[in-house]
């Protein structure tokens, strides 16, 4: 300190003309650039061969919410998918290749999704993205994935965005689309509770809008007594639930994620209000919702109506196989709808990879998915094809009875304009859940 300054903690005024900072800025920037170069290691990606495919492995990647507000509701999915792949690899993999599943956490934040997906494509050199989770998150990387010609399979969301083969030829959805689910729930409500006022509570994005669209399509514009929305950034739904209660709703269709299903049911119970709850598949898994509510509130879920398109009955052969895989390869983690979902995604990808031939390329993988020959393991038909990039356009109703969530038989298909009642078409389990390789 050369300055005899009375207040040594303050920056002494400088003469701007001799300010040394611009040069320091130069040095710093150059230094930062050099550090960046040193970190770089390898420079340019190799162009030869199919990315992510070696003689004995296929590397695929995903973005999932392992931390953050959505983690408790959906975090277990990727662990289940990994467990299925581990099981598959132990049985010899597909065409002799084992599947490496790289799971990156994006905390359900689109900004992080953009970073981790670039890491998966640019660094990990994945063959394909599989089951990237979430509408806001995945929408933010759609263009990037398209430009890089990365197959983008079985997105974990029911938004209609993924089903746009003209604009996004590489992208395919996995969930039954929200409109289908909303319509199916509304029809079942109309059939079983003909006198009840139908209301909707939805998330304030594609999810809630899609559910409302489906409900309105069936019940008519005047058939929805009240529609309320919530935002994930506000963990208080008292006002919305209060408004629905006041509207005299007998059936409330929920387009809510698991956490907000729990919050809504809990809030309504506090208001001593017990309408019939009809929940979309993404927020209607009994065990996951109970995880939020606490086991002591299990009674609140009695009678909960939901829809699903994957095996769910406790005595289903797929469910039993998945329970076994969960015990052996997933450390016996709690077995929920998320477990079945994650393993079903794994099975469908394995099936696609098997159909993509002995030397799979990105083109042959996409061709296999569009071939119309994949079956998946759903209880309704898999509708993937060249003109349809949505996996399921039908859903079957489940109800919680005596603490068990199971199908009740009502199944509906949606063709984009009308809802028709149909039969469920379960896929028989073959070859211990390992897709056959032609």
């Amino acid at each position, binding site marked *: 300190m050369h300055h005899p300054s009375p*207040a040594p*903690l*303050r920056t002494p005024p400088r003469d701007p003309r001799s300010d040394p900072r611009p040069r320091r800025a130069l040095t710093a920037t150059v230094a930062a650039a050099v550090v960046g170069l040193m970190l770089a290691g390898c420079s340019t990606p190799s162009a030869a061969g199919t990315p992510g495919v070696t003689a004995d492995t296929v590397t695929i990647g995903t973005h999932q919410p392992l*931390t*953050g*507000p959505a*983690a*408790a509701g959906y*975090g277990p999915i990727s662990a289940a998918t990994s467990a299925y792949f581990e099981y598959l690899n132990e049985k010899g993999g597909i065409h002799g290749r084992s599947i490496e599943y790289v799971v990156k956490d994006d905390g359900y934040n689109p900004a992080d999704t953009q970073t981790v997906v670039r890491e998966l494509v640019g660094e990990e050199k994945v063959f394909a993205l599989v089951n990237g989770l979430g509408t806001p998150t995945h929408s933010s990387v759609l263009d990037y994935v398209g430009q890089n010609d990365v197959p983008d399979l079985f997105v974990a969301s029911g938004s209609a965005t993924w089903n746009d083969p003209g604009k996004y030829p590489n992208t395919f959805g996995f969930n039954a689309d929200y409109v289908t689910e909303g319509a199916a729930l509304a029809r079942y409500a109309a059939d079983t509770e003909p006198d009840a006022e139908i209301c909707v509570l939805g998330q*304030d994005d594609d999810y809630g809008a899609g559910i409302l669209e489906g409900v309105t399509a069936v019940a008519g514009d005047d058939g929805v007594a009240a529609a309320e*929305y*919530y*935002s994930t*950034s*506000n*963990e*208080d*739904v*008292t*006002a*919305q639930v*209060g*408004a629905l209660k*006041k509207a005299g709703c007998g059936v409330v269709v929920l387009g809510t994620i698991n*956490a907000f299903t*729990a*919050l809504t049911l809990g809030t309504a*119970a*506090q*208001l*001593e209000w017990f309408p019939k709850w009809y929940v979309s598949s993404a927020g209607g898994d009994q065990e996951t919702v109970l*995880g*939020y*509510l*606490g086991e*002591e509130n299990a009674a609140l879920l009695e009678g909960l109506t939901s829809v699903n398109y994957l095996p769910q009955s406790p005595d289903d052969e797929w469910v039993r196989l998945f329970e076994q895989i969960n015990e052996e390869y997933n450390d016996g983690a709690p077995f929920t709808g998320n477990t079945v979902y994650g393993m079903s995604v794994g099975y469908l990808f394995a099936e696609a990879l098997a159909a993509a031939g002995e030397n799979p390329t990105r083109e042959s993988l996409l061709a296999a998915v569009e071939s119309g020959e994949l079956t998946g393991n759903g209880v309704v038909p898999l509708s993937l094809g060249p003109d349809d990039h949505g996996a399921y356009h039908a859903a079957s109703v489940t109800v919680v009875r005596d603490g068990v969530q199971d199908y009740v038989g009502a199944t509906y298909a949606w063709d984009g304009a009308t809802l028709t009642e149909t039969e469920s078409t379960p896929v028989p389990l073959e070859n211990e859940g390992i897709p056959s390789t032609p």
Partner: protein
Amino acid sequence: MDTLVFLVAAGLARGSVLALFAISLVIVWRAARVVNFAQAAMAVVGVYAGFALTAATGSYWLGVAGAVLTGALLGVLAERGPLRLVPRDNPLPGMIVAIGLVMVLQAGLAIAFGAAHRPVPAPFPQRPLSLGGVPVLSPYDLFTLATAAVVMAGLAWMFGRTSLGLQLRAAAFAPETSRLLGVRVGRMVTIGWAVSVAVAALAGLLLVPTELGLSPHAADILFVQAFAVAVIGGLDSPPGALLAGLGVGILTSLVTGYVTAAAAPLAVLGLLTAVLLVRPAGLFAAREARTA
């Protein structure tokens, strides 16, 4: 009308927690001239401790005591540790060190306990009692309101009527003079921190059963709103924090009920901006020292 009554009552319960947390910020600001950005993170550490104690012993009240004591201890540690080393003539370094503490504590909690929400049951029923057919407040809301009132009355008594309170106030307002008069200013600052974080931990404990559950970020929004409340009230003024807290609680409840949930933070921002434009140092600010 029913809706209005219901929303105002719900807002009052939430507002009392906000006010309590805002008062904890006022206490530490008065004691140390620091805005403790780490207040939420420190409070949540206390709530985790209380939660663990309740889970281990089955007693809610032991959990409350554990949370409050952990909070007080954290306050002492923070003040005796990093914050004592911060230069006092400028509020900036203190705020930045507190921001650093937020990161350390939240990351530490997430590493130790995981990031998932843990359900926290309320000690009293959360079903509202009806008043003339209108659901108003639940027993838990009444418990929250009563606790907040008792704590605030206790604080007012301590600061206003006891010798300790007098020394605390003297040390905050005129540290040099107080030191000459024999007040142990350093110790008073430490006590201020301990009381402040203990109150914040209690507010956090009251809040958590009404939200999705306990997570390292459980009190983030509470902190931001309480900070806005403290600023609206004047940062220096406990009555200001109380009034502003109840006001903001009712405002957010009404906006959520009559407009939409998403608009509530915008309403708080609007109120804050409006108050600061009219009174740049808050509603109940002490007169500013000479500026020009």
